[in-house]
């Protein structure tokens, strides 16, 4: 095969035309197909080298340009014409599938060794096409190509679980490379592919959850793209459309795969802006399917006695990664271990949470939210582990709370005292993000939040704690179970003297709001 571009294309086109004829024949397609694949193999086009890349890239370009020509002739495509515009793309998709199915491979090489290479060629072509054409870029032929492949590869013999996961992870990597932050013009097609019923459920079901990190990464890609647009509550029509599409995907996950949302809640909360309360509530409301949640408004509900409250939640996100990245983990561990009052650790905390001025605009806040989230949950996990160790040992009287439990409270009290209103709001959000289904973290942070309410020296802090809870309750459902039981405790338990706080009556509508929310909480 001639390596130079124009000749190469001239030699590839007739091969594609020949393939197209084969797809059209009636019986004996299989034999003709195998002969054709063998012919390609013998002509050295399927070695997996540079020629192979060029071969697939030229075929893709021919297919996409065919789509463009058909669409150009009749922009308003009636449905039956849609099939016509995809003829070349469908043919190309089928050729790739047939090659992977029939191409002879050396002993020990995976049948699918060409798939990652073909996907790299496809991703590069899409990125190049999108960068060159900008607003003129048309994602539909590429969307069709991936849909064809997902349907074809999805029909692979399920026995070869390994093959299935190989295919799924190859596509997941391709979609990650095509994430909206990299190819924004592909965003709608991208989310449709990632959430497609032939892809997302397969990533999550089976394969002993090996696909979970891949979907987690894709959802983080989506949230990172949307985050700047979602920071302000009012959204334009376009973002609202994308936002509602995202809600639909999250609702499918909440309904069918709640454990996935449970286990990755921490990293999702890192990239969902604080203003997206309902979207975040969907994730925080997820609970394991085998769990039955007691009605939070049950009179005299003893949540401490719930068995699940003593079980630690599974957290698959990397909780202390950001602490490590900011060289804070060692200091936190040191303070939890020694609770050394002389150490500057506590007094420096606020400063370490502040972002460098250069990043403030981009991040939309002066604080490093993932760092605050990471510190809060990391400290909580350490404290819970020690509390559980102490409860197991029983021998120690309650007064001898291990140092670290008190040290953890020191950290939280310091943050309540030192942070400004914005910082305190983000800190309280980090705590409220742990109020989920019954588990040790929900229990611990519910107690901590109520303790901070009592311990607050200024009413503004108590008002802020109330606000963080209330704004999560007044949005449309769903509402996380842990949030409800915390708010109910706050308004019911006379110990918090809630109703005598002036801010509960600071305006008639606020008063009505508190009454309606407390009614809806039973």
């Amino acid at each position: 095969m001639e390596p130079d571009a124009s000749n190469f294309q001239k030699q590839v086109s007739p091969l594609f035309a020949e393939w197209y004829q084969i797809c059209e024949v009636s019986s004996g397609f299989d034999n003709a197909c195998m002969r054709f694949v063998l012919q390609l193999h013998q002509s050295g086009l399927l070695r997996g080298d540079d020629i192979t890349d060029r071969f697939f890239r030229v075929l893709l370009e021919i297919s996409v340009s065919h789509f463009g020509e058909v669409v150009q002739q009749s922009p308003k495509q009636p449905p039956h014409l849609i099939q016509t515009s995809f003829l070349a793309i469908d043919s190309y998709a089928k050729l790739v599938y047939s090659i992977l199915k029939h191409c002879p491979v050396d002993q020990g090489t995976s049948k699918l060794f060409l798939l990652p290479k073909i996907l790299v060629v496809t991703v590069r072509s899409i990125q190049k096409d999108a960068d060159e054409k900008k607003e003129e870029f048309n994602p539909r032929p590429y969307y069709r190509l991936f849909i064809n492949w997902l349907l074809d590869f999805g029909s692979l013999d399920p026995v070869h679980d390994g093959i299935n996961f190989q295919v799924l992870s190859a596509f997941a990597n391709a979609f990650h490379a095509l994430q909206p932050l990299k190819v924004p013009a592909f965003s709608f097609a991208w989310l449709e592919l990632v959430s497609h019923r032939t892809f997302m459920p397969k990533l999550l079901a089976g394969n002993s959850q090996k696909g979970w990190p891949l979907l987690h990464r894709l959802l983080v890609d989506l949230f990172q793209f949307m985050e700047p647009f979602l920071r302000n509550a009012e959204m334009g029509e376009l973002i609202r459309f994308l936002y509602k599409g995202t809600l639909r995907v999250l609702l499918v996950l909440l309904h069918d795969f709640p454990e996935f949302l449970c286990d990755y809640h921490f990293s999702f909360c890192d990239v969902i802006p604080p203003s997206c309360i309902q979207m975040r509530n969907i994730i925080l409301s997820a609970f394991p399917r085998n769990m039955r949640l007691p009605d939070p408004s049950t009179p005299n509900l003893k949540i401490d006695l719930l068995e699940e409250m003593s079980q630690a939640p599974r957290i698959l996100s990397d909780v202390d990664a950001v602490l490590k990245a900011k060289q804070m983990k060692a200091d936190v561990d040191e303070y939890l271990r020694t609770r050394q009052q002389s150490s500057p650790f506590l007094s420096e905390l606020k400063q370490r949470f502040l972002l460098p001025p250069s990043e403030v605009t981009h991040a939309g806040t002066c604080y490093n939210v993932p760092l605050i989230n990471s510190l809060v949950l990391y400290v909580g996990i350490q404290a819970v582990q020690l509390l559980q160790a102490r409860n197991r040992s029983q021998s120690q009287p309650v007064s001898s709370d291990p140092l670290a439990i008190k040290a953890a409270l020191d950290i939280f009290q310091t943050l309540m005292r030192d942070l400004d209103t914005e910082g305190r709001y983000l800190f309280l959000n980090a705590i409220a993000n742990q109020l989920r289904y019954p588990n040790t973290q929900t229990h611990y942070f519910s107690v901590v939040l109520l303790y901070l309410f009592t311990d607050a020296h200024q009413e503004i802090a108590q008002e802020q704690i109330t606000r963080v809870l209330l704004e999560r309750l007044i949005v449309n459902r769903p509402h996380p179970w842990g949030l409800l039981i915390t708010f109910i405790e706050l308004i019911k338990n006379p110990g918090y003297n809630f109703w005598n706080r002036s801010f509960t009556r600071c305006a008639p509508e606020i008063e009505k709001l508190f009454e309606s929310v407390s009614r809806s909480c039973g």
Partner: protein
Amino acid sequence: LGIDLTTLGLNLNSSENLHKTFASPWSEEPAKGEPEFTIPECYH
């Protein structure tokens, strides 16, 4: 205040999995549900 999530076209009380008929993030209609079937090689 968010939106009423039951108006997004998904039957959140369904006892069946939603993903089988999830058509698209942009559509309120369930997928018509291509019949899921596989044909053993020897049937060709």
